[in-house]
């Protein structure tokens, strides 16, 4: 769905006024309602500089308006590069990077996850690392005089299962 134009006019019956409180209840989400829409976040955003479809001020506004479905099903919430520039510069301490994390976490629970993050969760949950370490890697390390590294971590897998289990299949 386009984010502007006649076809995307906001209709109050589609809005969920509780969405902002839902976000506020997430880890790091508490300050969302402090935003006064100054746009400092968007002005300093390195992703927005490249592509306008990522616009942090707009995302916060959409959350405050209660555009729950559109935000959670969007592809743009996955585009935060976590540089923390907006986080550090925000005059209202909204903590945008954490808000983006909160939005992604809610989206994941509703079954919307970007495939690259699904894969990262699968790898970390299964192997305890972002990469599957092969014997080849350890042989290479030994040749370089570096200590070998563990290939799997049963306890990390156990700790990951409650929340990431679905993605580890």
């Amino acid at each position: 769905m386009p984010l502007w134009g006649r076809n995307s006019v906001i209709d109050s019956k589609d809005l969920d006024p509780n969405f902002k409180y839902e976000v506020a209840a997430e880890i790091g989400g508490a300050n969302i309602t402090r935003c006064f829409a100054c746009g400092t976040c968007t002005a300093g955003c390195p992703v927005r500089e490249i592509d306008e479809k990522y616009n942090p001020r707009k995302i916060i506004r959409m959350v405050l308006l209660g555009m729950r479905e559109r935000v959670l099903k969007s592809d743009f919430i996955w585009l935060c590069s976590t540089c923390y520039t907006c986080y550090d510069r925000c005059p209202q301490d909204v903590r945008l990077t954490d808000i983006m994390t909160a939005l992604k976490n809610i989206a994941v629970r509703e079954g919307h996850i970007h495939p690259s993050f699904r894969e990262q969760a699968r790898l970390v949950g299964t192997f305890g690392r972002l990469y599957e370490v092969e014997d080849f890697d350890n042989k290479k390390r030994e040749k370089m005089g570096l200590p070998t590294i563990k290939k799997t971590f049963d306890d990390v897998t156990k700790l990951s299962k409650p929340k990431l289990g679905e993605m580890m299949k």
Partner: protein
Amino acid sequence: MKYALFLGCTIPVRGQNYEMSAREVAKKLGINLVDLEDFSCCGFPVKSSSAETSLVLAARNLALAAEKKLPICTLCNACTSVLTEANKELSENKKLRDKINKELKKVGKEFKLGVKIKHFSRILYEDIGLDKIKEKVKEDLSPLSLSIHYGCHYLRPKELYDGFDDAENPITLDKLVEITGAKVVDYKNKLECCGGAILGVEEDIALSMAKQKLDNVTANKVDALVTICPFCSIMYEDNQRKIESKFDVKYELPVLYYPQILGLALGVDQKQLGFRLNKVKTDALLQKLEEKR
């Protein structure tokens, strides 16, 4: 000076030149780096899926360091920020700490207060100090002109780093490079993010972000870009050829990890600094040093 070395995921399989050179530099400067086999992923890659799981994984690593009563030395900026953030949150919020410890108990671990985390470059700057490092510099790197990329998570979010350096106008890495004799060359938009965290989400955007940096750095004549994070290095070095062909540009800009530079200055054998693992060849800049000798 003893630290538990936290390698993270990327460095031990894709950034061994960083690891080798950091270990060599540590030896020269009397930093004892201890390997803890059980250190896993820091938790950063799963934060987008579950911030709680990210916290649990970070807390598990912090618990391992606490068991050994050792501070943590990180090499990756993302590991640094995720571990520091978890440490801060769990130290300040008892309710959260109890919740996470309930999870950790299932694997016989417990988060304990008092663990310290520092990036290797910060250890060099704060714990060893410029003067002491300078005393040990054996080779003058003045033939080299270098630009520096700090990487976002090294200094942001600010609240994690107790006033260390200035995220909007950082100088500590500049100083660390300067003491080798090399000339530091500033460039436009020095603080710009590498885009690494969204490489898998939208490659076009991430590569465009990295391209801007490569454009700005190569607008001046420099011998290399210096980084301290494997994510950033992957964007600027491993993806450099891809960016060159995608945008029809040519950079051939070597990307070095800071300990490779410092290692040269401290007189470490070049072979021990992993230059042959650099994807963009470093022969020309090493030759420059050779000629000066």
